[in-house]
């Protein structure tokens, strides 16, 4: 009964959301927001129907080819790509329009979200590999030509551009002429400030920049030491998180760009922020690590390529299955396990020290021994409880992208997209697409899917 009323409530809410929010649900930046949550409250009226399909003359030209076939030393086959940020033209959009940059023809385009008609396009002087960000009627986009651009959202007119590097020069890079200091972090815009990084090779220098979003005037440009910024940047209220390609993200102060720390972990450019916790990966083996705000140490590891977090729950897909996890409970148990482990270690040392001194070794440290036994018992309970945090798991071999619209999980695969209920993992919809679906976004009532073949599909439900 509870679940039934819950479902009814959801349906009712959905209906309200559908009627009220049809034109109000924006997807203004890569993975929806500066935490890169990949989730929107927009409701998709599943089943969806394809409304249009636009195919670019030129398919995306990713900067980096695939990873090595294997890590022979560690005996790991089929390494996961850690630099897969530009395999498709990633879409952003609002108010019936969608926008994307092209790594093939260096342009930024605005399309009618219903028909796919091109409304305007603007040029940069090198590939645009990262999705634009929409903010305050403006389009912010970075280019491999070393510049951050601000365009008028309505007309595409260039309002300003900014170069972080001290000189303008182009060298052959990733098969094109480009700046040694490309903007490959996307642009995070919050309130009045636009943040981005320029640079790639530390030997050439790199900068973390903050500009006045309206004027393009520099607020700060902090030189980065030993950082290779590459991957969509994230922001919390006080921090900026800079992915570094195959490497580990760096955390910086938002107020002045000063570096706080480098993360540990296995590297990769998929990242999301949950509060002040950073989750990123996929490393070599398809694992996401979670890091708290206060430390570079990993607090949890999840087997997955992408993750979405909402409330207490998290959804993961590994390329083999899709699962729902009670994340807060899982983390709590892990925290307790870690604490008990540390306590046990301390106790063991204590016991060892006491026994070393004692003549009758069996009679000393009884109190500690009792505590150790209790810890052992609790640790066993935790080991049993942890797997129960996975509420459901369903086979699913789609591996390129996952986003969430309200209570529906949307996954991109090779030649197909599918939707699953976030509540129970049941598939609720599927459709074919041209190519591998590396990009997905939900703008208003429409799901946009972009592929490695340069196709952009628009799917929406029948308005009831």
């Amino acid at each position, binding site marked *: 009964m509870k679940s039934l009323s819950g479902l009814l409530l959801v349906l009712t809410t959905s209906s309200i959301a559908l009627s009220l929010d049809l034109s109000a649900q924006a997807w203004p930046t890569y993975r929806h927001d500066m935490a890169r949550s990949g989730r929107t409250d927009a409701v998709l009226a599943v089943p969806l129907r394809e409304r249009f399909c636009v195919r670019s003359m030129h398919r995306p030209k990713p900067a*980096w080819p695939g990873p090595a076939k294997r890590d022979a030393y560690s005996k790991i086959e089929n390494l996961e790509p850690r630099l897969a940020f530009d395999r498709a033209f990633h879409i952003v959009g609002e108010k019936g329009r969608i926008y994307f940059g092209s790594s093939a023809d*260096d342009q930024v385009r605005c399309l009618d979200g219903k028909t796919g008609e091109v409304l305007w396009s603007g040029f940069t002087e090198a590939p645009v590999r990262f999705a634009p960000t929409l903010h305050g009627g403006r389009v912010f986009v970075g280019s491999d030509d070393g510049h951050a651009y601000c365009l008028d959202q309505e007309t595409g007119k260039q309002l300003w551009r900014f170069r972080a590097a001290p000189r303008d020069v182009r*060298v*052959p890079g990733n098969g094109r002429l480009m700046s040694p200091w490309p903007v490959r972090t996307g642009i995070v815009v919050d309130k009045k400030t636009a943040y981005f990084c320029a640079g790639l090779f530390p030997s050439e220098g790199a900068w973390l920049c903050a500009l006045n979003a309206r004027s393009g005037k520099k607020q700060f440009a902090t030189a980065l030491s030993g950082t290779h910024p590459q991957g969509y940047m994230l922001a919390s209220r006080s921090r900026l998180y800079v992915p570094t390609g195959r490497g580990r993200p760096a955390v910086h102060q938002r107020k002045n760009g000063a570096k706080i720390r480098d993360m540990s972990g296995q590297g990769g450019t998929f990242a999301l922020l949950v509060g002040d916790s950073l989750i990123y990966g996929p490393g070599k083996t398809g694992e996401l690590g979670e890091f708290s705000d206060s430390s570079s140490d990993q607090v949890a590891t999840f087997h997955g390529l992408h993750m979405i977090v909402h409330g207490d729950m998290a959804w993961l897909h590994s390329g083999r299955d899709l699962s729902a996890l009670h994340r807060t409970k899982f983390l709590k148990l892990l925290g307790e396990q870690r604490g008990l482990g540390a306590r046990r270690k301390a106790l063991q040392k204590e016991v060892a020290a006491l026994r070393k001194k004692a003549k009758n070794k069996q009679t000393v440290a009884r109190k500690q021994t009792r505590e150790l036994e209790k810890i052992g018992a609790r640790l066993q309970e935790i080991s049993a409880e942890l797997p129960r945090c996975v509420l459901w798991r369903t086979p699913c071999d789609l591996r390129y992208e996952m986003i969430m619209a309200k209570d529906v999980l949307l996954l991109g695969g090779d030649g197909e997209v599918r939707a699953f209920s976030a509540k129970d993992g049941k598939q609720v919809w599927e459709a074919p697409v041209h190519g591998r679906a590396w990009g997905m976004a939900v703008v208003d009532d429409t799901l946009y899917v972009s592929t490695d073949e340069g196709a952009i599909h628009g799917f929406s439900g029948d308005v009831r």
Partner: protein
Amino acid sequence: MNHIGPLCIVVATTLTLAVAQRPTHEWDFSKAGMARSKGSLRGPGALLQSPLPEALVFRSREDRFVVSNSIRSARLPKSAITVAAWVTVDAPRTWGGLFSALQDNGAFEKGLLLGYSGSKFCFALASKGADDGDGKLTYLTGRSSFVQDRFQHVVGTYDGKEMRLYVDGELEASSKAQKGEILYPRRAVVEIGAYHDDDEDFPFRGLLGQVRVFSKALNEAEVRAQRASAAQRFQWPAISGAVRAHRWQASESALSRMSGEVSLTQTGKLSFDGTVAPVKVQFTGAEALRGTLPPLPGRTRSIEVTALLGSVRRRSLLARFGELELGLLDGKLRFGIGERFATVGEKLAPFRWYHIVATWDGSLLRIYLDGKQRAFERSDPQVGPVGGKLTIGDGFSGGLHELNLSNALLSSTEVVERYRKKKALFPKPLGVEIGPYASFLTPNRAEIRWQTPAQGRAWVELVDVDGKVQRVAVRNVRGTSVAQISRLRSGLSYDYRILLEDAAGKQHATASYRLDTAFAYADEHVATSLADAGPDVVKLVSAMPKGPGYSVVLGVDASGSSHPAALVADLAKYTEQQIVVVIPGAGQAQALRRSLAARQIYGTRVTVVQAAFDDLPLGSDLANAVVVAKGAKISQRECRRILRPEGGKIITASGEVLHTAVQVAGTGDWTHQYGSGANTASSNDGLVSDALELQWFGKPGPRPMMDRGARSPAPLYTNGRLFIHGDRRLFGLDAYNGTILWAHEIPQLRRVNMPRDCSNLNVLGDDLWVAVTDRLWRLDAQTGAMLDTLEIPEALRPIDDPAWGFVHATPNSVIGTATTLHATYRGAEGEWYDKPGVEAEAVLGSAMFAVHPESGELLWSYTGSHIVHPTITVDAETIYFVEDRKPSKESLAKGRLVSQDGKNQFLVAIEAKTGNKLWERRYDFRDFSQVFYLSLSTGVLVAVGTSTKYHAHGFEASTGQPKWQHSHAVKKDHHGGAMQHPVILDGVVYVEQKALDLQKGKVVREDIPGRRGCGTMTASGQTLFFRHYDHTIWNPTTKKLTVLPGIRSGCWLSLIPAGGLLLAPESSSGCSCANPIQTSVAYRPRKK
């Protein structure tokens, strides 16, 4: 009586001993014993029953028998112990546990383990007497490898003073490192069938029959008595009863010749495809052979099949007999009964014959592939003897040559034996003299080329991952067969083979090869023929560089043309160059972009940069051409600055060449593995120093390269081109802008372990010479086109497996050595070659020779000894090497220098022009056992090698007279330290961490910075380059160390200073590191 008496006494004593020793703990995994065994079974592990000895099957990760979660409650003996187990291990693994009660977590080492490591049993124990504060385990490892298909008795004992490990009653290891009471951890799980502690959980896979623990250390006689007492129970059974077999062999006449009592209701189509000497039954997926067999006695079965997989199908059957099924699911071989299947992990490759044996002993299902056990699984115990209906080949696409069905249980030894016999009968693939090799023309179109002496109609058969087969016609171009494959999908790999039908209609097929579009480096654009172009365009395009690259167009806005985009569009259409247009005016730039975008060539073919002509925002030395429009005010200085040296052109829009750039003075080449034939690892490039900036970066990345640890051949450079040896592929790049000029996929191209061999590459001028199996290919350095091939002279060609070894080309001769393919290192299984021993054996050449570069005519030969490949050193007139005149039998068999006797090794110099010997010197090189190098500089030959020390010996190059000797202790291991190749620079020999005077051998400096990792050093004229975490530079004059962070080089030689650049092709493939970038990159001297 005299004979019988002692025998009786021995038997009686044995029995007495066996009975006398009572275990404190016993776990007996028989049906009756399980009830008595304390603990609980986890996972799906289940009891194995007759006809094999009763035992527990440990198959999955979860399978284990938990004795106790608390080590205390397990009450294990403390002062002395014996742990004995009856076991058969499935396969070698890094670690496996039979009985574990330990914690081995970093420095924390307590408890005990009876288990195995690799293919050998081990016994580990920690005691209080050897406690270093947090415990210390001693691991004993047995001598012999465990054997499959029989139970072994493994025993670890400890008496408070000594640990011992017995295998089948034989003492295999012992240690007195531990003393006193056993030191158990306070907390550990006690498990059978796992090595399990807080940090690790290595499961055991195989069969466990019994584990016993005694509170004393059994002595050798007692151990043997224990073994004898249960030997009968754990006897591997001989199959009793009548063995009956059914055998079918595809024959030319008809299926009626098949033996057995099967009545076939439908027949498969018999055909020849040339891949088999005998006939095979060809299945297309629609046919099957069906019949009924009389029952076979007993509960054991073996099925033996020789099969060739055609295309992959979702599900296909090789043979089904009753409920017993051998078939493929998604290309993976599986064998089972009912719902239980053993499945081989990897897919079978198409177009390849396999010898497959599947056995069922009534309880265990096993699959052997080409003689090796590859999978096993327990069958459902409820399943009884099978028989009755037989089906062969249902849904199967491919060929079956033979199928044997028997109730005999083939042992692994018998399987190996059968495979060996049948392997010789396996169809021989069609021989290909040259190739095949593939080149991508566009991302989705490839061309495969080869030469074969066989005549007939040929075609290429291509199969994709979904099993879809495509047949492609072949044309003959001047004696070379060429097949163009179209509509290849991006990011997919294909398998292909070449088929040929001879005049008699018989078909022959090659082995299968891989074609992967992930390695398509060609652009989508192909230059259009000039046939429809106007004369002005023809003139301009004719003056333009051929092939891909970058061309900069200046002044198009000032050309006066009413269609300024036309010139640019023509260049984009008729050339393969990327066009970069520089225009000062913002409005004009924008207009031109719009115009080019409308032609759908913006970005992909043309980019417009808005900038002033007197300060072009372009890097230096990158443009293959600068096209200057008429009337434009262009800075000549800027034009020349951006122009690529060694052939870059300044051209007017009317096609007049104003200037052609030449080689920059003072630059160096890298034409051989260690720079030049002199092996100094130095290019003497006068421009490259420690202040560098980015010149270009990009492909090739890590995917097409060999794993870093294989130590592959070095990249080469000359005439502005860079050549890179990838994993079975070869690249030619424009060294100044990184453009991939050409790339060939060459399945046979692979040579590694360079410290123990010579490179298969050499470049001379515009020719790249590449040794591929037994041929030397001559490629056009600019286009990659095959110009010619040379053969090993007939008289010098090894009979088996011939391979062209050393390569050194001169204008008048090509010098080579003959060796064998099996002597060279291939490294296809992830080998690293950084250990002493078998990985360190230098490859030997059986003869050296010189042939004419055009005609292949033999000019001279040098025979009678075996030449140590990594020592071959060449200058303009002389060839130096070390030879072994009496290699050991093992060395001869392997084609490698397995050992040296100090009496038969000679340092030799021969004349390069004639091969005549100039001098020889017998020399004791026994200390040069791990690496063995020879280098030449200013009249001094330097031999460098390692054993326990790092040795460098100097010789007069003109006479071979020894000049000096130097040795010092090796501080770093063979991963990168002891293997270091010397660098000779400015009269100084840089060896591992020391610098020696070239003439005297004296240590002149020891301040060489430490290097981390595995690479070897190189040098320009003034600076050393190496890997120290990242790309690193050390200037010996200023002592300045410069690190270019974030990107690392490979595990041998991949940083080459040449052409005024530091060239660093990607070579960290497979790196465990988190370096942010893996890319090929070039640096140039930074402007002050």
